[in-house]
C-alpha cells in the first residue's frame, strides 16, 4: 500500500513538475512570439515616451493627475537632454521629444519652457532641447511658439534671433498660410517686427523649393526694396536650376525696376559659374549685355571661376582687360579672398602675392596694387604692401596707396608703421597727408 501510494505521489509529482516546466516553456515561446510581433509592428511599449502614455491612456485627468502627468513628461524631457553631449544630431532624442510634446497642450509647453532655469536656452543639452521643443511646437502652434521666443529673457541675443528665423522657416515650409499670416500680424514683438523682412526672406527661400508658384505670388506682395533683395538672393541660391532661372528672369523683367533685372542676371551668372564657368559664360553671352553691365557680369563670373583656379583665371582677366585702370569691386574682393586663402595657416603658399608680384608694370598693375592694400594689411602682409606701394608709378594711385597703408598700419603696429614712414623718400612723405 505504502509503495503504491508513494508510486502515485511520485507519478503525480513528476506530472506536476512536467506541467510547470511545460507551462514555463509555453510562456517563454509566447513571450518571444509576442515580442517579435511588437518589434515588427514598431510597437515599443517600454520606450520612455510610451511609459508616460501607457499610464495616462484612457483617463480623464483630474487636476492632480494632470500635474503628475506633466511632471512626468517634464522629468522625461530633462532626462533625455540632461547630458551636454545630447545635441540636435541625436535623432532619437528629438523623436522622443516630439512624441512627449504631442501629449502636452500648447499652454503646457509654454509653461514648461518658462519653468526652466534661466540660461537653459544656452547651456549644453538643454539649449538643444529648447530648440527642439520650439521646432515641434511651432508646427502645432506657431504663434504661441514665436510669442514665447519674442518675449523670452534673451530675445535680442543672436542665438534667439537665429532660432526665431529657423523656426519660422520650418513652420512656413509646413504651413505656409499660417506662417505668412503671422509675418503680417500685429502681434509681433518690436524685436520680431524689426527682423520680419529678413525672416520672410528666408522663409520664401525655402518655399521656392517646395512651392515655387506660391513663393513668386508671395513675392509680389512684398515691398519693392525687399523684392529686389529677394530676387538677388534667389538668383544666387537657385540660379543653377533652369526652371527657376527662367522664372526669375521673367519676373525681374516685369518689376519695373531695371536694376532688378541686372541684379538677377548677375546673381544667376555667379551661381552658374560656381559649378561650371563655361556654362556661365555662355549664359552671359546669351544676354547680349553691354557696357557696365557686361563688365559686372564678366567680373562676377571671373571671381566665381577663380575659386577653383585663381591664378589662370585672374591672369586671363588681366589680359582681357589690359586697358582697365579702375578695378571692379568684385575683382578687388575676389583677389582679397585669394589672399586670405593663401594666407591660411595650413595653406601659406603666398600664391596671390606671387601672382601680384609677377604682373607686368603699367596702369593696370598700379591699380591692382592700390586696390589690394586693404586686403594685404588685413591679412598682415605689411612688408609686401609697402614693397608694392613703392613700385606704383601713377602719382594719384601712389598717394592713395601710401595713405591707405599708413592709416591701417598705424592702427595695427604704430612702431613699425612709423619706422616705415621715416624710411620713405621725401617725395613719398610729401604725398602722405599731414
Amino acid at each position, binding site marked *: 500500500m505504502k509503495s503504491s501510494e508513494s508510486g502515485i505521489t511520485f507519478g503525480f509529482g513528476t506530472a506536476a513538475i512536467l506541467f510547470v516546466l511545460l507551462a514555463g516553456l509555453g510562456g517563454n515561446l509566447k513571450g518571444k512570439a509576442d515580442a517579435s510581433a511588437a518589434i515588427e509592428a514598431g510597437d515599443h511599449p517600454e520606450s520612455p515616451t510610451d511609459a508616460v502614455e501607457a499610464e495616462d491612456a484612457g483617463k480623464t485627468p483630474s487636476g492632480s493627475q494632470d500635474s503628475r502627468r506633466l511632471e512626468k513628461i517634464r522629468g522625461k524631457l530633462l532626462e533625455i537632454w540632461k547630458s551636454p553631449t545630447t545635441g540636435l544630431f541625436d535623432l532619437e532624442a528629438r523623436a522622443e521629444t516630439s512624441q512627449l510634446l504631442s501629449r502636452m497642450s500648447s499652454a503646457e509647453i509654454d509653461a514648461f519652457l518658462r519653468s526652466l532655469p534661466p540660461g537653459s536656452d544656452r547651456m549644453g543639452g538643454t539649449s538643444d532641447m529648447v530648440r527642439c521643443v520650439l521646432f515641434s511646437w511651432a*508646427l502645432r502652434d506657431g504663434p504661441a511658439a514665436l510669442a514665447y521666443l519674442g518675449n523670452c529673457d534673451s530675445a535680442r541675443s543672436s542665438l534667439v534671433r537665429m532660432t526665431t528665423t529657423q523656426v519660422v522657416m520650418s513652420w512656413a515650409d509646413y504651413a505656409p498660410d499660417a506662417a505668412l499670416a503671422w509675418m503680417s500680424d500685429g502681434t509681433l514683438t518690436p524685436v520680431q517686427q524689426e527682423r520680419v523682412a529678413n525672416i520672410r526672406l528666408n522663409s520664401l527661400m525655402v518655399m521656392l523649393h517646395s512651392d515655387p508658384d506660391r513663393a513668386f505670388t508671395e513675392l509680389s506682395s512684398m515691398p519693392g526694396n525687399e523684392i529686389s533683395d529677394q530676387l538677388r538672393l534667389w538668383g544666387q541660391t537657385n540660379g543653377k536650376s533652369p526652371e527657376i532661372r527662367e522664372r526669375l528672369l521673367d519676373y525681374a523683367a516685369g518689376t519695373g525696376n531695371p536694376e532688378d533685372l541686372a541684379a538677377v542676371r548677375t546673381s544667376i551668372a555667379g551661381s552658374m559659374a560656381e559649378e561650371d564657368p563655361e556654362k556661365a559664360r555662355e549664359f552671359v553671352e546669351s544676354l547680349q549685355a553691354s557696357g557696365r553691365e557686361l563688365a559686372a557680369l564678366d567680373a562676377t563670373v571671373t571671381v566665381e571661376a577663380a575659386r577653383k583656379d585663381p591664378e589662370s583665371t585672374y591672369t586671363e582677366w588681366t589680359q582681357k582687360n589690359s586697358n582697365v585702370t579702375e578695378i571692379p569691386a568684385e575683382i578687388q574682393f575676389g583677389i582679397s579672398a585669394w589672399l*586670405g586663402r593663401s594666407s591660411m595657416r595650413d595653406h601659406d603658399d603666398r600664391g596671390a602675392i606671387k601672382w601680384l608680384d609677377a604682373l607686368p608694370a603699367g596702369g593696370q598693375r598700379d591699380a591692382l596694387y592700390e586696390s589690394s592694400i586693404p586686403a594685404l594689411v588685413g591679412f598682415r602682409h605689411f612688408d609686401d604692401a609697402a614693397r608694392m606701394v613703392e613700385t606704383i608709378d601713377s602719382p594719384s594711385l601712389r598717394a592713395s596707396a601710401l595713405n591707405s597703408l599708413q592709416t591701417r598700419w598705424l592702427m595695427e603696429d604704430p612702431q613699425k608703421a612709423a619706422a616705415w614712414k621715416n624710411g620713405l623718400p621725401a617725395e613719398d612723405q610729401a604725398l602722405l597727408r599731414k
Partner: protein
Amino acid sequence: MKLLLLTLVAGLLAAWICYRVSYQSGVATAQPGGRISSHGRERASREIPVAADKIEQLRGFLNRPFNERGSAEVWAVVSSMSVAQIRESVHMILQNKATDSAENMVNCLFFRWAQIDPMEALAAADSQRKDGGSENFSGALLSAFNGWFKRDPEAAFRWAQTDSGSNERFYISQMGGYLSTLPPTEAAEKMKTYGAAVIKAAFSYRARANFTSQEDRTAFFTSVANSGMNAADSQTVLKSFARNWGFYDPAAALAGLDGIPLNDDQKSQARQWIMAGWADKNPIEALAWVAKENPPHAIADQIAIYNKWLSTAPKEAVAALDELCRDAPGFREEVMKSQLQSYYDEGWVPYGRNISSDKFLFSRLKNHYDDWATTAPADAERWVGTLEPALQQKLHAPQ
C-alpha cells in the same frame, strides 16, 4: 486536491514569468535602448525578415519637407528596423536626390544601425563618405558615431581616434562633455587616459555648471590647477567659466572674482569676459552698471558694451548714443575710433570680407558720422578732416 491546486498555480506562475522574461528580452534586443557591448556588437541583434512595408513607408516620406514631426515619424519606423532593413533602406535612399528629408532619413538609419552593430554601420558610412563624395549624405558617419556614442561613449571614442576624417574636434568635444557628467573623482581618473584636448573640453563643460558657492568655484579652479593643463587651455576654461557666471549674475560675478584662486591677469581677463557676457544679455543694464562704478571704469569698457549693443540692436544703440556721450566725456570720439577701426580691420579672414560686408561696415561708420554731424557738426568735421582723403569723400557723399 491541495497539491493539484498548487501545481496549477505554480504552472501558471511559471508560464507568466517566462512570458514576461522572454518578451522583455525580445523587445530589448531590438529597442533603441538595447545595450551594446564595448566591442561594438550587440549580443542579440537579430535579423528580422525584411518587411517591405517599412521601406515603402520611408520611400513615401522622401518627398515631404523636412521638419521635426516628419523626423520623429521617420525615427518611429527606423527604430524598429533590423540591420537588413536598414541596409536596404539606405541603398534605396542613396539612389535619390540628397534632399533635407533624404539626408535626415539616412542619418536616422545610420544612427540606429550603429546602435545595433556599430562597426558595420561605421564601415558602411565610411565607404559612403569615400564613394559618395563629401557633399551628398555627408552626415552618415557622424550619425553612426553619435548613435554608438550614446550607448557606449568610451568605445565610440576609441574608434573615433582611428578616424582620419575632419571630425576630430567634434569627437573631442563629445568626449569632454561625457567626462564632465561623471563624478569628479571618476572623471579625473579617466582623464588621465586622454589627451590634453579632451581634458580641456571636459573642464570647459564643467566650467559652465551653475556653481552655487564660492567653495565650489574654488574647488573647481583647484582641480583645474591640478589637471596639468597648459596656460592656454586654462585660459579657455576660465573664459567658459567667466562668461557663464556673467550670464547668470554678472554683478555678483564681478564682485565674487576676488574670492577665487586666480592671479591678477586671470581676474582682469575674467572681468572682461563677464562684461562681454553681460553686454550680450543686457547692454543697457551693463552700461548703467559701468557708469555707476566708483572709480569709473575705463571708457574702453563702455565702448566694448556699446559695440556689442550695436551688433544686436543698431537702431536702439545709435538712438541712445547722444545721451551716452552727454554722460561720458570723450565717449563720442572713442566710438568713432572703434567704428573706424572696425571699418578698416574687420572681416579680413578667409571668405570674410566681401562687397556686402564692406558696405555694411561702411554704412555703420557713416551712420555714426551722420549722427554726429547732426548734433555737433563742427566736431564731426574736425574729426573727418583727420581721415584719408578717399574716406573723407565717401563719408561726405550721400548714402
